[in-house]
Structures are given as C-alpha cells and as structure tokens.
C-alpha cells in the first residue's frame, strides 16, 4: 500500500526515468542493429569467420554488467565519458551483438538451399537475392533476435544507474542504499512492466515485417 502510494506520488518522476531508460536502450540497440545485422550477413560467407565472431560475441555476453561498467570507467575517462549515458549505451551495444548477429546468421543460413538455387539459376545477383529472398525470409528470426536484445538490455540498463546513467534503475539503487523497499519495489516493477510492454510492441512490429506469404493462418 505504501509502495503504491509512493509510486502514485512520483508518477511523473517514474515517467521521466522510464524515458531515460528507453533512450539508452533504443539508441544502443538501434546502433547494434546497424552493426550486428551486417556482421551476421557477412559471416554467412565463411564458416570459420562465423565460428570466430559468434564465439567472441558469446564471450562478451558472459562479462557481468557491473564489471563491464567498472572496466569502462578507466577506459573512457580520458575522453571525459567515464560515467553516465555514454558507457551505458556502449555496454548495451556490446551485449546486443550476440542475439542480433546469431539470429541474423542462423536465419540466413537456414534459408532453403532450393530457393537460393532458384534465385541464382534465374539470374539474381547476390544483392538481389539478399534483398528479394533471403532478408524477407529471415526477417521474423532477425526480429526475434532484436526483441531478445531489447528485453535483456532493459535489465542491464537498470544496473547502469550505478554509473550515473539514470533510468529506472535509480529507484532500485536508491532503494538499496536507503533501505527503502518502496523505491526498490517501484523500480523493479517498473522495469518489468517496461520490458513486457516493449516486447509486446516489438512483437507487433515483427508481425508487420513478416512477409504475408510466411505468416501462419493464411487462408488456403
């Protein structure tokens, strides 16, 4: 009850913290899409490159977020960005690489070889094949990777409050340091709701981007 009262009294603060949160995740994941999807496409050309890149991305994701934030303080301090928004965005970019690269790679590699052969045999250039056949067919799986990255990093961003990046994590860190369960619970619940809401929104986008001929439930 006390917590609800607290949340109600601080609605506008929760709102602005949520916007900070979204700003970090959306900017970082957008950049990660711009790097991860091309990398995922590129590594379909070589099994060895794919193994190496996926291994590297898997290693990145095993670094605990708090340690990654800690590492970035000395690395980014010389250019004046040791704490705050920039290291948070960089961390989220790094964590997003694995789901995005892996899903892009798998989706493209899984395109039916018969379709690839048909495309080549009818005289499509590699880029035409990618644009007309492979990417449309891979779209649902690539989008699933982006959703995974977003949801995961809404959690990671909560911890970025410790390096002064703001966001809903601020409630959690303050709740812990001030032993105030109201702030703690408010923060935790807000992060969860944000994750679910964004995931539902992206599921809707995924549906829009899925080619009609692939969608299940098309009337036969």
């Amino acid at each position, binding site marked *: 009850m006390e917590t609800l009262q607290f949340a109600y009294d601080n609605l506008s603060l929760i709102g602005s913290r949520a916007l900070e949160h979204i700003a970090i995740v959306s900017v970082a994941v957008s950049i990660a899409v711009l790097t991860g999807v091309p990398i995922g496409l590129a590594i379909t050309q070589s099994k060895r490159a794919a193994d190496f890149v996926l291994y590297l991305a898997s290693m990145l994701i095993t670094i605990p977020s708090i340690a990654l934030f800690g590492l970035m303080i000395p690395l980014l301090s010389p250019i004046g960005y040791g704490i705050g928004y920039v290291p948070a965005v960089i961390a989220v970019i790094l964590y997003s690489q694995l789901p995005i690269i892996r899903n892009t790679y798998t989706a493209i590699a899984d395109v039916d070889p*018969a379709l690839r052969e048909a495309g080549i045999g009818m*005289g499509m250039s590699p880029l035409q094949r990618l644009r*007309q056949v492979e990417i449309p067919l891979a779209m649902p799986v690539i989008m699933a990777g982006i959703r995974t990255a977003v949801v995961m990093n809404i959690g990671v961003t909560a911890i970025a409050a410790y390096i002064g990046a703001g966001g809903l994590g601020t409630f959690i860190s303050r709740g812990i340091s001030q032993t105030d369960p109201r702030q703690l619970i408010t923060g935790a619940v807000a992060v969860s709701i944000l994750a679910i809401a964004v995931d539902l929104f992206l599921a809707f986008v995924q549906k829009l981007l899925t080619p009609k001929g692939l969608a299940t439930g098309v009337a036969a």
Partner: protein
Amino acid sequence: MIRLENLTKTFGAAGSGITAVDRVSFEVPEGEICVLLGPSGCGKTTTMKMINRLIEPTSGKVFIDGKDVTHIDPIQLRRSIGYVIQQIGLFPNKTVADNICVVPDLLGWDRKKSRTRAAELLEMVGLQPDTFMKRYPKELSGGQQQRVGVLRALAADAPVMLMDEPFGAIDPINREVIQDEFLRMQKTLRKTVIFVSHDLDEAVKMADKIAIFRAGRLEQFASPEHLLSNPATPFIETFLGTDRSLKLLRLVQVADAMLTPADTVRPEDPVAKARDLMEKSGHPAIIMSNGDGRPGGIILASRITGQGSCREAAEPVRATVPVKVDLRSAVALMFTHDMPVIPCVDEDGKLQGVLTYRSIVRSLANSKIAA
C-alpha cells in the same frame, strides 16, 4: 539450338579429382526436348548446370545459338534461360504473380506487361488468374506449385529452358497431367529444352532426343524410338529393362500400325465369304460393318459353324480403339476385352482399319528397321 563440345567437369585437384562429366558432346536442334537420362551420379545434372554456368566447365564449350556461353555475363545468361528445379523453389514471400514475374522484373519489363503475361500463362495451365495471381505459394497444392514453377521459367519467353527433374516432386497421376500439359504448350511454344530425368517412362514420353549418361560419359544420344529398338551398349540394354518393347508401344500410334483398308463383311453376306476372307488374310477374326461405316459386329474364325448370314454369326463389338491413341492403350484394350482383332475408329466412330497382334508385332519390327 544448344551444342555441347567435349564438355568436361572435374571436381577436386587436377589429376587426382573426380571426373563428373567426361568429354560430352551433343547438339539439340531448336524447338526440341532433349532428356538427359541416367542413374543418379551419372553427371546429367552437372552437364545441365554447365549450360547456364551454375557450374563452370573444366574444359570444353557450350554454345547457345552459336554463341559461346563463357563469353556472356553469367547473370545475363541465366536471365535468358528458363530454369525449373526439382524442389520447385517458389519464393514463399512472393505472390504467384510476383513469382512468375521474377525474371521479367529483373529484366526491367514494364510491370503491366509482365503481369498481363503472368495472367496469360496461368490461363494456359487452367489456373484462374483472378483467383491465383494474389495467392502465396503455400496456398497452392503441390500440382499447382509445380505448374507455377514451370510458368516462372516461361515468363520471360526465353527460347531455351533447363528443367532439372521438374516433375519429380509430384504424385504419379498429377505428373502425367502436367507432362501432357507441358507437351501441349511445347507444341506452340517450341522451346529448346534440356530436361534432366531418371525416369525412363518420362523420358520416352517427353523426349525428341534422349541422352543416356553413365559415370560421366554420354553412352548414347538418339531418339526414343531408336534408343528403345537399338540400344548401343549392354549397359543401356539393362537400363532400358526387359520390357523396352512395351515402352516402344507408347511411341507408335494406332493409325500407323493398323491394317488398312480392313477386310469387312456386310451383315447380309453369307458366312462363307467371311471364312474365305479370313483364310486369305490369315486373321483370326473379321469385322462386320454396318451400312453407316461403323463396326457392327465381329466374326471369329473359330466360332463359324455351317451356313447362314454374317448377321447371325457376328458377336457384338466389345471395344473399339480410336486411331489417335498409342499402341500401349490399344494393347491394353485388346487384352482387357480378349479381342485378337480390334476395330480402329475415327472420331465419328467410323471404321478406319483393324489392329491385330500380328500387325502390332510387325509395326514394332518396322520401327526397328527404320531407326
């Protein structure tokens, strides 16, 4: 016109590699279907894929209309050749119309022109354009997908088509229907077709020329009739099977094998006349013709007793065979109805000739001599 000259493909390092295709040469005249036939791994598909440069030859040349294909940009080359694959390979994200128009779109045709063309093509195979243009491949049955796969190869009206076991992924009944449909279209389209198959019956039915492959080598290149009656090697004889004479039946029309003019008797003739005619011709039966030229009955030599008119001696005609069908169907009818002599009729049911077991054997022997 497609000409292959000493076409060779070796996979792996030179010297130690595996030779998939070994010095294959043949020529397919314009407007003909050439079936590349052989057991799996015989090099027939590799040979076909060297024509549109999906596989680059190790040595040898391919000429299409006298032009060496290695001098044509591979992407341009492939757009100028219709291509049908076994797995159909329709793009699931594109509608039927967009699938058919892939190559026209790549070539930058006017959209209206290409969609009109797609509608015409759908019409040709009995698929309603209004219903099917906007559908997606997964909303089609297997047979419909297969048809669209063939239409896609026809869309840009390329003079040459490569078909890699195009009707392989389909049930036998639908396969026959689609084969007939394709042959019907081919009569007007006159494409030069290279058709890969491992099915002898399909090859005999579709081909103007059959190229039999074995372990990368071309064993024999001949018309189906010639191949069936004069297999060049023991391997081909085994491959064709002991029933190759039966397969030959398919290639001969009743009209070419029937005895004509047929001896006939009138209902009012005495049976003695029927007996005389049969003794002279050596046939086991004779047809009794009605006044209107239709077969009215059949008189068997073994059943003639004593005197009377033919009308009394005749038995009803249990079956007739149209002159347009092939001998295989005719023989089936003769067996089914136990008729050693069967009347052959035209579309109006008028008697044109008769078919006897002996006339069939003789026409097979003739095709052997002619070939």
